[in-house]
């Protein structure tokens, strides 16, 4: 058992824990406010990462090292990374517009939010202010991880399995919604693409240059295919087909 576990189990708040709390609690709050305040979505996500990291450290402080680390690995490391992935795809300049659609909405939201926070804080304080942590010693008796594992796979195994089933259902549902059904034979793999390319009526290669295998170097001379036939596609379409007029053919008076 680590020193911290022992100290936390004793019920007292030690100096180190207090100092850590008073450093990280404002940071967590700043992160939370920044999440709402930031106009850029990626900045918002980064502020949320800060709050989550602080929460992870709080869990560790309260002798839940496993949940603290999992908070950092799973939430901060993986889930926020997925968020960032999507936000980065959205684009850099996608900022919120600050135009209020409802008049006085922002003031009302701030007042209501502060009121709700104060209500929650006082309620929690009155309920838990005098309570001492109990049972931590027993819970962590065989080690924190072992304690969680024992509960998770005995008492709460049903809830745990149902949660995982829910998550898998959600993931499969999202995949079904986003997946475009294409039957196996319709899918164009490399072989199918090649076959389509060489199907009759489709010209597989780059167009032959004009004058290939020809006796004339004129761009108007069609190229020859491998079997000797002429291909009209080699002659540029934009070449005007013109005949010389009599005026063109007439002597210009420049010859001697």
């Amino acid at each position: 058992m680590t020193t911290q576990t022992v100290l936390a189990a004793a019920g007292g708040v030690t100096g180190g824990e207090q100092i850590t709390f008073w450093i990280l609690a404002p940071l967590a709050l700043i992160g939370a406010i920044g999440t709402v305040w930031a106009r850029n979505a990626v900045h918002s996500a980064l502020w949320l990462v800060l709050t989550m990291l602080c929460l992870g450290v709080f869990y560790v402080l309260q002798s839940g090292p496993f949940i603290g680390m999992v908070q950092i690995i799973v939430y901060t490391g993986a889930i926020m990374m997925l968020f960032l992935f999507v936000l980065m795809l959205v684009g850099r300049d996608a900022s919120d517009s600050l135009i209020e659609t409802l008049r006085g909405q922002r003031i009302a939201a701030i007042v209501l939010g502060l009121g709700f926070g104060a209500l929650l804080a006082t309620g929690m304080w009155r309920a838990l202010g005098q309570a001492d942590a109990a049972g931590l010693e027993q819970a962590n008796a065989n080690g924190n991880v072992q304690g969680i594992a024992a509960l998770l796979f005995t008492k709460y195994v049903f809830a745990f399995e149902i949660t995982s089933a829910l998550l898998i259902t959600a993931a499969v549902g999202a995949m079904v919604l986003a997946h475009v059904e294409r039957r196996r034979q319709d899918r164009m793999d490399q072989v199918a693409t090649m076959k389509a390319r060489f199907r009759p009526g489709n010209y597989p290669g780059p167009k032959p240059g004009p004058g290939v295998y020809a006796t004339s170097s004129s761009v108007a001379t069609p190229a020859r295919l491998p079997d000797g036939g002429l291909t009209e596609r080699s002659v540029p379409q934009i070449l005007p087909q013109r005949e010389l007029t009599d005026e063109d053919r007439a002597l210009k008076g420049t010859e001697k």
Partner: protein
Amino acid sequence: MKLVYLAQDPTLADFGKDPWWLVLIKIVGAFVFAVLATLLGVWFERRVVARMAQRPGLNQIGPFGLLQTLADGIKMAFKEDILPKSADKVVYFFAPTISTICAVTALSVVPFGPMVSIFGERTPLQVTDVSVAVLVLLACSSMGVYGIVLGGWASGSTYPLLGGLRSSAQMISYEVAMGLSIVAVFMTAGTMSTSGIVSAQADGTRLNFFGLFDLPAPGWYAILLLPSFIIFFISTVGETNRAPFDLPEAESELVAGFMTEYSSLKFALFMLSEYVAMVTMSAVTTTLFLGGWRAPWPITLWDGANSGWWPLLWFMGKVIGLVFIFIWLRGTLPRLRYDQFMRLGWKVLLPINLVWILVLAGIRTLQKEDLGDSTRYSIIAGAVLVVLLVTLLWPSKKRPPQRTLQEKVNRRPAGSFPLPPMDLQVPPSPRMKRAVAEREPANVGAGQPGDAGTGHDEKEV
């Protein structure tokens, strides 16, 4: 003797008792190790890759070119620090520091050695250890990717953004495989603290083969948990963005990926974090699978091999060996295409790992539970039967009938692209002959001393 031997093994209770100056020494020591590992790591990599490419490699500055990386670092510091106009300035500034801090922090829970005496204090050769130390390592590596992703995003340019996106997807994919390999270690060691895992690999359990004979199993998890070891090492290569998995900075596709816009010290920090991450991951692999600081077999015949400061030497040897493998991979394998890389992670490493953990859990249950012999053997027989059935009934791929070239030509529908006749004889070009006749033979002897210049004269005569 046995007591002294046991006392070498630090337990969780031995941590958190150091005086403040000792803590400071350990932290500074770990940091200096990280920086030195980068300086020497770059040198080592360039020398080894050069040898693999039949070149001499660094040999100009300092003995064996050892000071080349230092000179490069100083040069990098004095270069102009460019801040792109479209960059997100704050995030752009902080991204390299996030990478570096996370890479160095991971070293704090790596055990470098057993209990040693530093200025009269007996202390474990490890900055600190907690009951979830391996998770701290995972957290550090997953947070370190933020540096790369944010650096790519904040650069405000397309190639870095693509590099950052690739990096985030890569990290999520390979962290899963990595975490599952560590699960096997947890199950076998019964602890998550790094020092505990090292001491759990001290001596192997005795394997009992159906009561027929006793065999001392090897202690290293690399041997006991071979599939986990291989998958873990592959995932560390993916996690540290090293070749052949260096897709976030694939220079043939993305210029330099996430660090395209970075220059000067910020670039140096990214470089530092990459090499520190490589060394840290080697150290973690050593700790989890290669017995940590414990001496390998022939050395253990000597009694003092695992006490005092000697283990630091064995530890460094193993780490350098793993770093060499990292470099070897880079020198040997071509970079994977992105979809191949993802397929490897999700469709190969992950399923193998899951099946392996299931098998391992079965083995552990068979070993631990007080099963009757008949039950045990019937379970084993059932497992063998299932494996046999699966192998027998696995659907085999239908092979298309083999056709000759002429048959293939005949099967083509009418109107297909015209082919030249199959028995076409191309006459030799008259121009080819002339070109061959006029070319001089290669001047082979020109480089050798003594007959330089004589080659030409002979030909002209």
